[in-house]
């Protein structure tokens, strides 16, 4: 190894990064070369001077404080989030569910109600009000079971001046529904009902195409009443049906 090569390798040597083989060669050269020895000394001196005097800037206290606050806040937040995660998911599900109920079902309910109103108007104009003319629940129920495999709650409301004319089956958005037809004075009230397998109707009033409709649902049945009754009369009819349905349920 000559002086030039030593000059090239001296930094790595002093950094203790020289490969073993080269280190041996370099040290062999150094032992016999005063010029290179003084170069080593010079390099070393410069390094220690540099280390002692190169500016080292400590982090300003305000920076430290700022970062500390942020890290701590983040740490707390993380732990918080960790513990709350199941609840966050539960809450998300709840909100999703509520969105479905409030946003989706009313639309669905509205569509179903609109169809029910059309069926009602159709039945008035074609005169096909009932397929089975009877006011006897014992006759109506088996008839419906046979037709659509569903027994609607049939209420005899004679006491409340509603005359049960009979029943028919109908289709509302591809659902086979039972339609019970009542007369109040000279006006027809039709109660559509079907099992709540696909949806539960929200309770509400609808005024569609000149008819008043009222929707609600129970565990056994979705109900849409369509009529030309005014709001108050319709409410009274719904109350009567509901009372009767409850009576029936508690009776059976």
């Amino acid at each position: 190894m000559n002086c030039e090569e030593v000059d090239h390798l001296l930094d790595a040597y002093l950094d203790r990064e020289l490969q073993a083989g080269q280190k041996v060669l370099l040290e062999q050269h150094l032992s016999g070369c005063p010029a290179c020895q003084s170069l080593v000394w010079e390099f070393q001196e410069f390094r220690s001077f540099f280390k002692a005097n190169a500016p080292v800037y400590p982090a300003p206290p305000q920076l430290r404080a700022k970062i500390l606050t942020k890290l701590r806040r983040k740490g707390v937040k993380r732990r918080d989030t960790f513990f709350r995660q199941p609840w966050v998911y539960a809450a998300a599900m709840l909100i999703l569910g509520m969105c479905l109920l409030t946003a989706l079902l009313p639309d669905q309910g509205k569509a179903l109600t609109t169809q029910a109103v059309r069926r009602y108007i159709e039945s008035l104009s074609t005169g096909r009000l009932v397929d089975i003319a009877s006011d006897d629940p014992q006759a109506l129920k088996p008839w419906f079971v046979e037709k659509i495999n569903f027994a609607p709650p049939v209420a005899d409301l004679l006491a409340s001046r509603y005359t049960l004319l009979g029943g028919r089956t109908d289709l509302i958005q591809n659902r086979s529904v039972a339609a019970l037809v009542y007369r109040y004075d000279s006006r027809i009230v039709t109660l559509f009902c079907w099992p709540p397998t696909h949806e539960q109707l929200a309770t509400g009033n609808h005024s569609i195409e000149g008819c008043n409709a009222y929707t609600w649902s129970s565990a056994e049945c979705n109900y849409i009443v369509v009529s030309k009754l005014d709001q108050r009369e319709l409410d009274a009819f719904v109350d009567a049906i509901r009372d009767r349905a409850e009576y029936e349920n508690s009776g059976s």
Partner: protein
Amino acid sequence: MQERKLPVEELLLPHLDGAYNLARWITESDADAQIVVEEVYAQASKQEFGQEDARVRLLTIVRNRAYTWIRQHSGHSSPKDREESAGQSPPPLSGNKRTRDLHIALSKLAVELREILVLSEIEGWSYTQLASALDLPMTGVTSRLRQARLRLRQEIAEAQRKGLPE
């Protein structure tokens, strides 16, 4: 394997001085270095750090962010500003003439040379660590370090020559 799960503040805070110092060396500005370090800590606190490599990894992020910063803000501080700040602000030992010359010389070095000096001489990084952090081959590390020391000594000699009347 399990014991390395330290909270991020305990892992990263001990290296704040080193992080700031490196950013300060690269950006040559206190304000810029503070911004860089703050950003890096915000970013790093979302990552997983092992206890052993936290410092090297953190400083590597600081280094890269500081580079991006000076690239985005080039012209932000003129060489003259730098010279002044290098001449006036260095801490403790600024009274000594040779030390002042060192600071001036440092401020005149290219940023890559300043950076490798601080990482090697102050941080004491090995060539392997330097190669990985600076994305250089080992031979590149050797030659850049050599160049940095050479240039620094030339600049000091220059500063000494200029400053003779003092």
